[in-house]
């Protein structure tokens, strides 16, 4: 694989791997692993939303805990997902045992996924509610709205776009982390990548990487479309709209 000719061969082998039906079907095949990773991603994202969003939205509403809500993203960025997964898998609990449909090291992976989904969710949701303009909040108070009325009828609708982009960021983060779970022999398509590289079957590793990357793009485009559909509040086009992509800033993994 250090010669030009060998590299051309590698593309060919990768294509062959992707176009061979038996690589997709069966136990541990691409479809099986893809389903496993999607299940992990959806579960972790839902858990993180149920846990993180109410707290973050409430903190934003009462305007407290901002330091923590914003810095949790910086902390999350500095901790390597691989290191956290390694600790969880090596520990007595959760360890690397099978966990229902989530596969080997399923529980450890789920915990790591939820932990890494929380920072973008919390930071964006907090900032979203916090940055509802003061004059609008004052107008709502002037109209005699109670605290909860203000939250449900004024702050939450205005915060939705930024909350949604936090969910999008979390989705990308969770999908990436679920792939890395393979480095600790966890579930997901990443397993086929790591196996390929461990056994010098590079075409297999690259083929699975193509599948993971394409699935990531499809998820991101799907999420962006859903976001646009949900964002029904009419608003004038803002110059700063692009910044709304993330208050948390990108979290990579």
């Amino acid at each position: 694989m250090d010669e030009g000719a060998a590299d051309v061969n590698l593309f060919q082998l990768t294509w062959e791997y992707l176009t061979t039906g038996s690589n997709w079907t069966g136990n541990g095949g691409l479809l099986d692993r893809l389903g496993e990773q999607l299940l992990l991603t959806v579960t972790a994202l839902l858990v993180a939303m149920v846990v993180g969003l109410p707290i973050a939205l409430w903190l934003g509403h009462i305007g407290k805990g901002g330091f923590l809500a914003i810095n949790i993203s910086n902390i999350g960025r500095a901790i390597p997902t691989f290191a956290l997964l390694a600790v969880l898998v090596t520990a007595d609990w959760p360890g690397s045992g099978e966990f229902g449909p989530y596969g080997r090291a399923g529980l450890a992976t789920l915990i790591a996924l939820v932990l890494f989904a929380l920072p973008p969710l919390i930071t964006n949701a907090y900032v979203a509610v916090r940055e509802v303009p003061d004059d609008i909040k004052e107008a709502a108070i002037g109209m005699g709205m109670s605290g909860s009325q203000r939250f449900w009828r004024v702050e939450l609708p205005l915060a939705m776009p930024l909350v949604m982009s936090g969910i999008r960021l979390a989705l990308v983060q969770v999908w990436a982390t679920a792939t890395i779970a393979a480095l600790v022999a966890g579930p997901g398509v990443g397993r086929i990548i790591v196996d390929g590289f461990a056994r010098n079957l590079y075409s297999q590793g690259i083929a699975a990487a193509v599948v993971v990357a394409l699935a990531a793009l499809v998820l991101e485009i799907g999420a962006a479309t859903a976001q646009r559909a949900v964002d029904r509040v009419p608003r004038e086009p803002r110059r700063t709209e692009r910044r709304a992509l993330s208050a948390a800033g990108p979290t990579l993994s």
Partner: protein
Amino acid sequence: MTLLVGAVPGAAPETDGPSCYSALVNEWWCAQYVQDRQDEIVDATVQHLGITVAALLFGVVIAFPLALLARRLPRLESTILGVSTGIYTIPSLALLPLMVPFTGLTATTVVIGLGLYALTVLVRAMLDAFRSVPDDVVESATGLGYAPTRLLFKIELPLALPVLMAGLRVATVSTVALVTVGTLVAYGGLGNLISHGVQRDFRAELVTAGVLCVLLALLLDVLLVALQWLLTPWTRGLPT
């Protein structure tokens, strides 16, 4: 998985009784381990730092001209932002294999792969940074007779520095964490130790490596803050 271990020598024989990192005890933190495997740990940290710095340099060198171009051509801006969002969506464990046909199982694969991520963060930061320069300042400078190049380096770049450095800090901290994934192609710096630790159920090794990663990220972040303080004397004493 044996391929991944390549860079790391096998477990050392226990010479003087069970230490805190023997398989029987297997403690999470073990000073004896750090002492005994000092060379290995230092090598991994140096590799980690080297890959991080190289990837960031790659990112900065490419992001800067791209940001300047995008500033001139608005249509190019949306293309660049779209592509960079696309790259950032791809998981690192998938991006590295995609580089392998071009650069093989080398440190270059990790440097370019992570450089691409840094690039996506940096281009955005640079565009935001240039936008943060007040228009009236640019107009005054133009009125004073600043030519475009001098305007860029003497006026715009210094004023854009705070936003730019914020982006660089995000890119740096992310890159340090991501280098660990490079263990897939055996160039993961401290990630190689984490990988070895997982395979041998060697807690002290993987925890030490993980903690060093976080410390390295913090250290580089502090250095960048200090650099920014040195470079922007006019912002001192102002609320940030």
